[in-house]
């Protein structure tokens, strides 16, 4: 990559969201902001090789985008009155509570992740408007047709305009619920990259985990006091740190107990651990941790152990007990049972897993867990049947490969 290309790529990563956000505020219209930002970057690609990279790429891009937006509005002059009418609601009062930074990007995040939009639309809008991913990129990552995705984004933008979804940081009393809505979008993006229903090694999918981390870092910078933001970032980092160790050279999923811990990314783990320690200190000071903070703490225990046998299982079970209080879903109960197997043995765990039969009969991990526990208890035949069921339900090829090998190793 040439220096100029690199500068364009870097500017795109660093400045895209800022340009879209500041234009959205100025023109009160997501469509205009998105299109003008895209045109500004296209102009940069054309001009920078000849003119050189400007000393302040962000300012150059914003100025260029503003000019493009004004051109477009002039072209559509006839619709000027209509346009004014359709302007988004922009609340100019600076948000004071919780040390919230008054940043246009924060307004943009809350608009894109508004609860009045469908979840798929929130994901698509967030990746397009904040992440700067193109429509074909997002479509490929989520295995949907480009036209369908384009429609999804267009409809969401139209609803934002017609229903007057505001462009502002929510009031202090609404902030925790709205932040948790934003985090749900980012976690979904991350998981889609991490547990993709296709080959794990697909680079576009890795793009999704990286993008989710980048956006979570951004929100962390904007809302540094929020414990759940820190928790989700730590959870993503500690999960991402194990990514390369998680799939073998032959494309098979490697479970935690068999992973080469030397291949884990030490820098990501150190950063994740720092965040978890920060939240532990807050918890000690009386701030009850939320779901992501607890999940991050569980992952911190795993990534602190040099060997699977060094794992502090009682600590992990205690954290799952805490999580069950917040989230009574059967999936949490299943994960707790997996930890219980290490602490109290497979028989106790199997009893707990069997109680989830009604709720989780269609979930591959339920059958995979049962298969493993039955194997450890020496019930080969029943274990084989459970592996068969898990293989039938698993969508991820790396996972299927792992389950198949384990089944075929049964005696």
């Amino acid at each position, binding site marked *: 990559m040439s220096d100029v290309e690199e500068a364009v790529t870097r500017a795109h990563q660093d400045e895209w969201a800022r340009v879209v956000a500041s234009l959205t505020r100025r023109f009160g219209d997501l469509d205009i902001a998105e299109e003008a930002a895209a045109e500004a970057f296209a102009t940069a690609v054309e001009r920078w090789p000849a003119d050189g990279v400007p000393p302040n790429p962000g300012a150059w891009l914003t100025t260029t985008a503003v000019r493009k937006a004004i051109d477009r509005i002039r072209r559509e002059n006839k619709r000027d009155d209509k346009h004014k009418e359709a302007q988004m*609601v922009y609340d100019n009062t600076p948000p004071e509570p919780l040390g919230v930074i008054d940043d246009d990007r924060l307004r943009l995040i809350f608009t894109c992740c508004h*609860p009045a939009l469908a979840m798929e639309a929130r994901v698509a809008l967030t990746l397009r408007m904040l992440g700067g991913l193109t429509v074909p990129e997002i479509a490929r990552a989520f295995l949907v047709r480009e036209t369908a995705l384009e429609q999804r984004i267009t409809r969401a933008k139209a609803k934002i305009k*017609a*229903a*007057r*979804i*505001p462009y502002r940081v929510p009031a202090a009393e*609404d902030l925790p619920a709205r932040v948790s809505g934003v985090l749900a979008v980012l976690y979904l993006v991350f998981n889609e990259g991490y547990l993709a229903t296709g080959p794990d090694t697909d680079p576009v999918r890795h793009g999704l985990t990286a993008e989710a981390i980048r956006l979570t870092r951004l929100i962390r910078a904007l809302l540094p006091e929020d414990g759940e933001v820190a928790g989700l970032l730590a959870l993503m980092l500690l999960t991402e740190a194990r990514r390369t160790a998680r799939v073998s050279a032959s494309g098979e999923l490697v479970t935690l107990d068999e992973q080469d811990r030397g291949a884990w990314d030490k820098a990501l783990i150190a950063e994740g651990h720092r965040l978890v320690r920060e939240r532990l200190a807050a918890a000690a000071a009386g701030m009850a941790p939320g779901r992501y903070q607890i999940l991050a703490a569980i992952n911190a225990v795993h990534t602190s152990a040099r060997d699977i046998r060094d794992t502090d299982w009682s600590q992990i079970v205690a954290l799952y007990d805490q999580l069950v209080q917040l989230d009574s879903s059967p999936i949490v109960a299943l994960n707790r049972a997996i930890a219980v197997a290490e602490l109290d043995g497979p028989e106790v765990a199997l009893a707990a897993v069997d109680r989830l039969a009604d709720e989780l009969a269609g979930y591959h991990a339920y059958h995979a867990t049962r298969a493993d526990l039955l194997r450890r208890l020496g019930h080969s035949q029943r274990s084989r049947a459970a592996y068969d069921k898990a293989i039938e339900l698993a969508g991820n090829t790396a996972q299927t490969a792992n389950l198949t090998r384990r089944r075929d190793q049964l005696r």
Partner: protein
Amino acid sequence: MQYLVSVIDDESSPGSTDRRPAISAFNERLIAEGYWVFAGGLAGTDAATVIDNRGEQAVFSDGPFVESKEYLAGVWVWDVPDLDVALKLAAEASKVCDRKIEVRPFQ
């Protein structure tokens, strides 16, 4: 910005019938806060008549234009600054009416 706020009832699990005092109190508040434009409860859908005069002669037919388990039980029109305000009030309205609420902007 005005929104049509529809109260939706469901034949298979109707909301409770003792909501009138609570709704009146809620209306008082909407008026005091300047959001209230209009409110009205509707008679049952069996009292509805559909008129179609697009052809040569007006045709009257008995019953609602769409038969469905869910039906409109009443409406509000609110004038509020944006959707966030509307949704917050609608969340209260759903509790007050013990029914689902649809919020839809006027053009």
